[in-house]
């Protein structure tokens, strides 16, 4: 069973349209959702949660339509939004509230995670730093036996140690087999460490949704004289940069002659290249 399936998902706000053709997140996997500011990452997560009504398409979460028994579905989803809205409660008070909302709340796990992430239990939410607020949200998301985690820029604002802890938690979570994670982030280096799948969102459109390894194997970085670049099939070149020392281009491996030496290219470079290609 897939943890998440989006088919033909659409939402229009004024002159912006989100159009997710097809996105599939298998169980046991972590998917990174990469996109520039305003690309529609948060909107996608809100559509999955049915917080925002889609104009078209379908969302299937853990084998169920998102609108079929939403309470049961949300009980199995742990969500950390970009802005966590807790009205002045302390971590302790939030725990008591969520204990009375989630059927599978684990108070012990919550307490343990607050300690692990160094979140003070008795400080009002509005007095916590931005990073602490995110950590509190993460602790809550992990404390009710969720099967799908939706994290919207959840690790932004965390210190490197905390980010590493959270990344490890996400890896362990997904490794439990029936769980899955969808995480959107600008920190692509984190996504490269933990993600199995990468989805690129650009100006509301899903440019691709692919296994990270396949993606990295499909593209490469070519360093060559500018003249040689002109000899290549133009459709294989995503981006090019010409300097006094030569040319540098992100290319599709299957579009360049066999034996051409290509350097590995990171997810961030591929995304930037695809976004610029789409723009032109």
């Amino acid at each position, binding site marked *: 069973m897939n943890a998440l399936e989006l088919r033909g998902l659409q939402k229009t706000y004024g002159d912006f349209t989100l159009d997710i053709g097809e996105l599939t997140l298998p169980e046991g996997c972590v998917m990174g959702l990469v996109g520039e500011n305003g690309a529609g990452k948060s909107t996608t997560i809100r559509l999955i*949660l*049915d*917080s*925002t*009504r889609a104009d078209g398409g379908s969302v299937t979460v853990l084998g169920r339509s998102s609108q079929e028994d*939403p*309470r*049961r*579905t*949300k*009980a199995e*989803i742990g*969500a950390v*939004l970009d*802005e*966590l*809205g*807790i*009205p*002045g*409660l302390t971590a302790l*008070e939030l725990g*008591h*509230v*969520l*204990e*009375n*909302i*989630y*059927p599978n709340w684990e108070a012990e796990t919550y307490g343990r995670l607050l300690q692990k992430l160094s979140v003070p239990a008795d400080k*009002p*939410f*509005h007095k916590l730093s931005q990073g602490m607020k995110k950590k509190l949200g993460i602790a809550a998301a992990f404390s009710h036996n969720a099967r799908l985690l*939706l994290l919207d820029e959840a690790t932004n604002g965390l210190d490197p140690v905390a980010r590493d802890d959270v990344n490890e938690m996400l890896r362990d979570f997904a490794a439990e087999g029936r769980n899955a994670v969808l995480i959107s982030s600008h920190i692509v280096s984190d996504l490269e460490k933990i993600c199995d799948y990468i989805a690129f969102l650009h100006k509301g459109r899903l440019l691709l949704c692919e296994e990270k390894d396949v993606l990295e194997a499909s593209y490469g970085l070519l360093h060559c004289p500018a003249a040689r670049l002109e000899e290549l099939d133009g459709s294989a070149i995503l981006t090019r940069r010409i300097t006094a020392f030569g040319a540098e281009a992100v290319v599709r491996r299957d579009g360049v002659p066999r034996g051409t030496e290509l350097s590995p290219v990171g997810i961030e470079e591929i995304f930037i290249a695809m976004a610029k290609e789409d723009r032109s």
Partner: protein
Amino acid sequence: MRGLLLKDWYVARKNCRLYLAVIVITSVLFVFLETGAAYLLYPILFAGMIPIMILAVEEKTGWNDYSLTLPVTRRQIVSEKYIASLITVGGTCLFLALLWLVRLLVLGGDAYALARLPAQLLCYGVLIPAVSLPPMLRLGVEKGRAVTMAVAVAVALVIVMLSMRADEIGQPDIAARMGWHIPVLALIAAAVFALSWLLSIWLYEKREL
């Protein structure tokens, strides 16, 4: 529902202390100072505004968004506000009834008012959230407040016009003077409250957050 009510209690405890103080002080003052039953609408007014105050805090802090990630429906989120209204207004009416009983025992007075007044005040009290919550849940607290203010001004004008009749000032049985009996008043209040509840659910389910 229990979790949402507990959240409201925590928020009220931190943000509505002034309201609670006003309710207690005005209740004691107006019961024992024999100022007239109409003044007892003050603590009821503040009691009815507590859920609205909590709604404002929630909107300001972004709880509306976060709550939709939880396994609660929009229907439950709205219903919890109405239940909270009944708790705050009903609790205040009970408090007033207790004060009135103490006053009866200590100072004597109208024993019939003990039975009649809290029921009347409860009926008036539930009208405050009934009128305020639908526009606020649909439009947000700021825009909804404008609608509520317009209704409040209209209601205040009616009360002022009634109060201007000299023989009605300070009379505890304004409703009776208007020819309404408590059961009729209760029926009207219950109907308005119930319709408001249903309307709010319908409006909030349509709202884009």
